[in-house]
């Protein structure tokens, strides 16, 4: 499965932060990983329920993985197996949104034995994890650039707001043999803004108010702002009332920038609308060809690409991405060449891929 045989060396990390990415990178690289000191100094030590749930999910999508957890749950030893895929159902619970589980799996999906067909239950929109709308309209489109196109889809069959959830999504991803390298350094200019305002178990009028307030901020720049209202009724609207807005700006060269907010108790649609619009402006001011939410994904796919140079322009790196770069170096021994472009405060990042090949997919 993996293009590198395991060297028998165990990679060791400590802390519960960045748990998902380390497990995913271990799965892709075939390296054994040991994570220690998971909240060992906390009053309530060990893994949380959502982390345990993620480990169970990882076991479902792979074959032959072994996960050893010590009694207190503060140490994990993970020996990755092969990525299988297929039809999988998982209840994500309500402590974290579906985004927590789906986001990392997106990178495993193209390299499975069979195409992924995942059905997840849980919270679709919240303020902690990437919402399903952003994943559908931005994250999945990043894959397209690397040659993963046909059959890639995410359907939100039911929406679920925090705290009780009750949403349901279906994710399908085709498998590929290899990825394409990318050269994406022209960020272009923003030509249109799209968005989705959704609400569950509240008056549909809230969605319209979200749209109006977001438009009032964004219309000064560009007339092409269209925000869809997505109102789910009855069974399809989950168990909790709530509303959320997700915005996407697209540039002339196809660069996508996203921003999103979900309402907390007591917030008005106007608050959320203008807050999301400002977040989008913030994102745009950073520049680059990929937004902060998807930096890690693009960089990882560049590393997994063929043995050729891939290049991308990014805005300000987030803390998450910086740690990701360090982990990528640990797992794949790839370091990026990073050059800062002083004309617009962006960074040019280049790397040579490891030439990852999915041998389960026949060449055609």
């Amino acid at each position: 499965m993996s293009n590198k045989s395991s060297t028998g060396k165990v990679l060791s990390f400590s802390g519960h932060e960045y748990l998902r990415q380390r497990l995913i990178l271990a799965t892709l690289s075939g390296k054994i990983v040991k994570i220690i000191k998971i909240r060992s100094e906390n009053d309530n030590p060990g893994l949380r329920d959502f982390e345990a749930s993620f480990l169970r999910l990882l076991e479902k999508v792979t074959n032959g993985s072994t996960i050893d957890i010590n009694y207190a749950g503060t140490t994990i030893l993970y020996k990755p197996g092969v990525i299988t895929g297929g039809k999988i159902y998982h209840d994500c619970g309500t402590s974290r949104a579906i985004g927590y589980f789906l986001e990392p799996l997106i990178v495993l999906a193209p390299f499975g034995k069979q195409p992924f067909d995942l059905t997840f239950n849980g919270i679709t929109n919240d303020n902690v994890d990437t919402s399903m709308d952003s994943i559908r309209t931005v994250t999945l489109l990043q894959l397209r650039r690397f040659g993963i196109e046909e059959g890639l889809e995410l359907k939100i069959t039911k929406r679920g707001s925090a705290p009780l959830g009750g949403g349901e999504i279906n994710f399908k991803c085709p498998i590929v043999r290899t990825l394409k390298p990318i050269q994406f350094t022209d960020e272009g200019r923003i030509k249109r803004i799209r968005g989705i305002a959704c609400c569950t178990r509240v008056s549909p009028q809230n969605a319209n108010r979200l749209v109006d307030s977001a438009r009032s901020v964004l219309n000064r720049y560009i007339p092409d702002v269209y925000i869809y209202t997505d109102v789910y009724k009855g069974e399809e609207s989950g168990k909790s009332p709530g509303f959320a807005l997700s915005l996407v700006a697209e540039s002339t060269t196809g660069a996508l920038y996203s921003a999103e907010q979900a309402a907390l108790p007591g917030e008005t649609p106007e608050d959320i609308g203008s807050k999301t619009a400002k977040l989008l402006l913030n994102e745009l001011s950073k520049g680059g060809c990929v937004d902060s939410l998807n930096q890690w994904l693009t960089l990882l796919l560049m590393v997994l690409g063929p043995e050729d140079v891939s290049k991308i322009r990014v805005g300000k790196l987030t803390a998450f991405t910086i740690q990701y770069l360090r982990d990528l170096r640990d797992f794949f021994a790839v370091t990026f060449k990073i050059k800062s472009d002083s004309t617009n405060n962006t960074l040019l990042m280049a790397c040579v891929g490891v030439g990852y090949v999915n041998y389960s997919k026949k060449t055609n």
Partner: protein
Amino acid sequence: AKKMFFSNRRINIMQLIYSNEKTPEEIASGKFSDLLKVEAASNEKDNVEEEENDEEFFKIIKSQDKDSESMNTIDSTKTYLDISNLDKWDDEVMLESIRNRFITGSLEDDSSV
């Protein structure tokens, strides 16, 4: 001098990320446009650490338990976005400053985009 400053800076970003003990949060919050300051700050930090490393047998664990589940330690891509200083986007000058990121902006001063 300007050239030297920038050539210096290039090395620094890679150094910051790949051969530095600092946490990603510190690097991300330190502005890239002012790396000298970041470096100075890191030196300061080293000094502080040395002072703390007095020969004590028991280490006192910093009381981080209460808010250890605060936004920074949650494993999520989204919480690393800075949503605290959105008020700056109420300012007209700030709003105009990204005008050129849109196709409606003027094409002349492309360099400022």
